[in-house]
């Protein structure tokens, strides 16, 4: 259990790092790579959201791409109907959150591959509707000329905006993880039956986790609108959902820092290794397998173990999954 003081120190450190990035990066990176970082930050938000339900909660959700898309389209549509940007943003995130609840409730009793398939079906249905409801969504061409916050294509100011949003998302995830709520979710993940036996409201928790992942996904969608100024359905296709899962796994299930690491590895590195892209992702897939089989806690877990040796702090990483079967 992290003490309040340590938590505060960690958050302050995160703020400092964020500010440092904001100051340094625009000096060293050109517009193109700034854009890559912008996209990476959006992926961080998505990964943080998925980590809520998958990492903290241990529930396999393949719906993250749907929430991403729902947030983006909801914002674009709302703004196109004259809603001011802040209102549309909140509205879009809320809309995504509500759909998270609508997904979480019927799948309460589902686990494992049944849950995976149900959430995947959801993702597919959403991505199909994005194309089919073309009166609303612009169909396969998507929506153009989204005003957003007037920064579309302006990668540097967008960097500041995205860093701010990501920081809030990150802080939220960390505070949640180390709060009593986070403790309860760990109980829920580690042993559902024991959690019920000590009076935890497991139904509310499961729905709540889906809502949380949906809120994060929706926020990421809104940010994407702001960054790009246009959206099209293929960005939110159901096949993309697996990439977010791989980010969370490689970074470390149940770790907020892990979500950041995973997103960075997935988004940044391939840009540097352009010509090796496919080979990189073959390796990435292999790392997913190796991590899930052999390295509990992913890369963040490895880092945390080093850190623990130095400072004897506790982390919320999913323990060796095979140990969970106690």
């Amino acid at each position, binding site marked *: 259990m992290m003490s309040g003081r340590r938590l505060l120190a960690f958050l302050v450190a995160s703020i400092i790092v964020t500010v440092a990035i904001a100051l340094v990066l625009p000096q060293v990176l050109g517009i193109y790579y700034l854009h890559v970082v912008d996209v990476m930050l959006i992926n961080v938000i998505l990964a943080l959201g998925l980590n809520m339900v998958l990492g903290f909660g241990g529930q396999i959700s393949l719906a993250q791409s749907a929430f991403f898309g729902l947030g983006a389209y909801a914002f674009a549509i709302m703004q196109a109907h004259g809603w001011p940007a802040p209102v549309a943003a909140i509205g879009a995130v809320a809309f995504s959150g509500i759909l998270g609840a609508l997904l979480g409730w019927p799948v309460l009793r589902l686990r494992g*591959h049944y849950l995976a398939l149900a959430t995947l079906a959801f993702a597919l*249905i959403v991505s199909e509707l994005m194309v*089919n409801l073309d009166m609303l969504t612009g169909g396969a061409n998507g929506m153009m000329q989204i005003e957003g916050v007037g920064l579309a294509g302006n990668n540097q100011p967008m960097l500041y905006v995205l860093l701010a949003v990501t920081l809030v998302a990150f802080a939220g995830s960390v505070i949640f993880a180390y709060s009593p709520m986070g403790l309860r979710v760990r109980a829920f993940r580690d042993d559902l039956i024991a959690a019920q036996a000590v009076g935890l409201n497991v139904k509310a928790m499961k729905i709540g986790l889906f809502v949380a992942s949906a809120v994060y996904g929706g926020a990421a969608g809104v940010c994407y609108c702001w960054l790009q100024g246009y959206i099209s359905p293929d960005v939110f296709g159901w096949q993309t959902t*697996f990439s977010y899962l791989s980010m969370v796994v490689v970074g470390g299930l149940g770790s907020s820092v892990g979500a950041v690491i995973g997103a960075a590895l997935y988004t940044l590195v391939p840009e540097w290794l352009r010509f090796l892209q*496919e080979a990189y992702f073959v390796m990435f897939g292999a790392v997913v397998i190796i991590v899930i*089989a052999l390295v509990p806690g992913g890369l963040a877990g490895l880092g945390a173990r080093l850190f623990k040796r130095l400072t004897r702090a506790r982390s919320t990483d999913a323990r060796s999954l095979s140990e969970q079967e106690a």
Partner: protein
Amino acid sequence: MTQLLVQLILSGLAMGAVYALVALGYTLIWNAVGIVNFAQGDVVMLGAFVAVGALTNMFHLPIILGLGGMLVLMAIFGVAMALLVYYPVRNAPQLSAIVATLGLSMMLQNGVVLVWGPEPLSFTGPFGNATVTLLGAKIYTQYLLILAVLVLMMVAQEGMFRFTSIGRAMRATAQDAEAARLMGIRTNRVIAIIFAYAAMLAGLAGWLVAPLFYVSSDMGGKVSLDAFAACILGGFGSIPGALIGGLVLGLIESLGAFYISSEYIDVIAFGLLFAVLIFRPEGIFGEPQMERP
């Protein structure tokens, strides 16, 4: 009008047969080791690439040898899957196995692009665009080939399961691996064989479907999903369920696309699947889960 109906039914059955072959692979692996191979559709794709991209296009083998060679290579790949993907997560909870197979999926999809480039391949197959006339309707000969292969496969498989020692060992291992070991069955080998067989089924499905569409790195995803849906519809873990589920799904998609809406057919089909998962997850032939601690 009946001509159209015949065409729709046969194309639906043909696609359904492909789903059934893939679904069979899911079912066998699930029964044997209790994991769902989310990469099964990508194994289908791999089979198509190997048969078409390598054996036919690169080495210019006649089609039949291309098929045979591919099946052998897929069997080897299946054993590799058992060793490198299943074995490390065999005692871990379900989440791990699902994630591991998703990792494999990522490797396969990118791997084929690495080897064969990003352009889809085309494959005329044994019949190209040839058609036959059945009940007054023109249908692709390939459809008939697919259906014939499915029937042959099922008969051969039943024969293997019923009349051979290895088939009996496979069934026993699937039902109770430890008890099978008590009988002297080397279950590790049997499991590897089951994976090899499932990979061959997937490869065969890929080879059958390749002439109908392009062979591309993303062809596996939808097939995976559809075959998975077929398993759920028919009852996860049931072999007749996989068969019937596949054919029924193929028919629903084909008839639904024409009579209801081709735009919304996927939404409808997967909405249906969602409903089945919520209200009757055991599907048509499955046993309702009666948990005993």
